[in-house]
């Protein structure tokens, strides 16, 4: 840095706020949850049956609010539909509208098909406003035949198969948005989409474990130990892949030591020392790795395994948020002059403040609570475990 700190005048204004951190975080939770649901529907992982419905509904609830942070970030949200009306073929971002809409549609249809039998049954039995809602959702059907059930199962499997690459595209594409910015050496790497995808799977599974354990505790139901153990194994494997990719990117940058490495190394060791070194690597990656290793041991007592998995999952959710933060905010903390750093003003209030961010993260959980009141998220055989 030659002892001189110099920032381009316009670089002192950080353009992408915490809302752009939340967006990939939320879509990651969606993609990860959907992949767990597909493990059950496509790959017949029966052990995941207790969380298969929760995973799917969770994916829908988070996907439904994935655009909220973007709308809060846009300076002209009233023109948001321009991205679909006049998309630019050269822009990585313009694919968002189509990819998101198709994926949302897929999720809605799959959730409807999964719950169709329950909706039809309730349309027959329920009275009052909720009965009306079920009758609307059943589209007039009052009976589920074996043939229609078979057709539903086929469609669910087909949608799950299509949904796996769609989920990968939805989130890999978010990584591409950053990876394709050649102006920014912290972002510009072909690994970025893969890193985002791997961390999406990690965060999706972790959130599912946390939700499952929490909701089971709230319902006074013992969580299925085999299911949690299986989820923890998937989580552990995914964590290894995700962290390996993140470290690979970093080691590659450091070893290559390109023209901008002097800025990036200062960024890592000074500006992101806590959020990267401590939170993302130490607390968010290393600790969960050890905790999950302990949790998934075949002879581990379920009463011990579940808290270990739960704690590891919470830490991983923090890790993935830190990773998004370090990418999005970290990439804006240095000037394109590569001679100086800027401050990121995180406000409490306002459209892009901390409170708004907390509300955005809470909305999908409220939606999930509502969905849980309307639809049977848990399989019928589970209640006997109380």
């Amino acid at each position, binding site marked *: 840095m030659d002892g001189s700190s110099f920032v381009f*005048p316009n670089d002192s204004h950080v353009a992408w706020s915490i809302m752009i951190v939340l967006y990939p975080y939320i879509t990651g939770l969606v993609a990860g949850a959907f992949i767990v649901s597909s493990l059950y529907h496509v790959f017949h992982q029966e052990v995941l049956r207790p969380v298969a419905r929760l995973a799917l509904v969770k994916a829908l609830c988070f996907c439904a609010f994935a655009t909220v942070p973007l709308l809060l970030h846009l300076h002209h949200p009233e023109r*948001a539909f*321009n991205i679909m009306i006049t998309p630019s073929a050269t822009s990585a971002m313009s694919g968002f509208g189509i990819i998101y809409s198709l994926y949302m549609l897929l999720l809605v249809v799959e959730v409807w098909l999964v719950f169709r039998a329950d909706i039809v049954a309730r349309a027959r039995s329920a009275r009052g406003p909720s009965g009306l809602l079920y009758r609307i959702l059943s589209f007039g059907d009052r009976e589920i035949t074996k043939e229609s059930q078979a057709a539903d199962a086929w469609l669910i499997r087909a949608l799950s198969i299509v949904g796996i690459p769609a989920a990968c595209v939805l989130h890999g594409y978010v990584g591409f948005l950053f990876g394709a910015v050649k102006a920014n050496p912290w972002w510009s790497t072909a690994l970025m989409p893969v890193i985002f995808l791997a961390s999406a799977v990690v965060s999706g599974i972790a959130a599912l474990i946390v939700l499952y354990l929490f909701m089971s505790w709230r319902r006074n139901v013992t969580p299925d130990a085999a299911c949690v153990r299986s989820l923890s194994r998937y989580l552990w494997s995914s964590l290894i892949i995700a962290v390996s990719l993140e470290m690979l990117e970093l080691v590659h940058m450091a070893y290559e030591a390109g023209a901008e490495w002097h800025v990036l190394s200062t960024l890592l060791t000074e500006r992101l020392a806590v959020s990267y070194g401590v939170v993302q690597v130490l607390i968010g990656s290393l600790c969960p790795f050890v905790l999950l290793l302990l949790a998934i041991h075949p002879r581990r007592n379920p009463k011990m395994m579940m808290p270990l998995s739960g704690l590891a999952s919470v830490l991983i959710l923090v890790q993935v948020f830190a990773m998004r933060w370090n990418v999005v905010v970290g990439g804006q903390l240095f000037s394109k002059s590569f001679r100086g750093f800027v401050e990121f003003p995180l406000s409490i209030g306002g459209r892009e403040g901390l409170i708004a961010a907390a509300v955005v993260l809470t909305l999908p959980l409220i939606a999930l609570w509502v969905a849980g009141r309307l639809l049977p998220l848990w399989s019928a055989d589970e209640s006997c475990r109380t």
Partner: protein
Amino acid sequence: MNFGLNILNNSAGGCGSGNSASDGCGDHGACGGCREAPPERSRRDFLKRATTIAFGSFSLTLLPVSSGGAAEQQASALACGASSATGVSGAAAVKEKEVLYGFLVDTEKCVGAGKCLTACRVENNVPEGYSRTWVERFVHFKDGRVQVDLVPETGYAGSDIPAINPDLVERAYFAPKLCNQCVDAPCNQVCPVHAAFTSPEGIELVDPDRCIGCAYCVQACPYGVRFINPDTGIADKCTWCYHRIQRDEQPACVEACPVGARVFGRLDDPESEISKRIAKIPTSVLKEHLGTHPKLRYIGITGEVN
């Protein structure tokens, strides 16, 4: 001003100053100082037309909003908008004959007066805290340190910038910055809604009626030229005073420069001053490795200017 010392001693080596590029280097791009001529129009036309045809077809079949002739319409609209914004009446029509503009910054002439900065801010109503153009001062000390800072809009006279002892300085110069008007502009590429577009004259502009304020272009610009205007919420940038050049006037910064350090003109006219100077003097562009092919060229800068 404490800077009467050897500001301009950084003559570019290797090319033979005073010769034409071909005389000095042989092939275009054979040395770092001499760059190839801006990509020819035929390639740009081809790409532009191919994109227009592709999008025209797509829009006509699927979309209610037509994009046909959008560049010209948008350019006219922007010319109107900029004129009204700066208090100049009358919208200039897009020229019938296509021209290709270029911009040359001669760091060997710039004295850091700051007149260009004020002229730009006034002309384009640039909000405080943001800049469409700025001037960087590079001071190379004898001990190897390099100090870079911003030239104040009022110039150094009366500013609180501490004076530098000339005895400690090996060389120093000023590097004015503005939009590079890249031929392969990343800002244009990433705009998801066609708000960023290229005028028929090769100027990168923003359609204020289409911009959604996502700031992707701000991130994509390698030169830090774009910003989100806090007053309008849309992407803002240097347009080389497009509304002025539509009226055959020079950009405000060029007009205000007291020493002729900023040269604007037609690259497709071999008799224009910019064409003659580019032909005679080695020039270079910023961050060439990124492949953006800027139409803004510099005389007398070395690698530390980015």
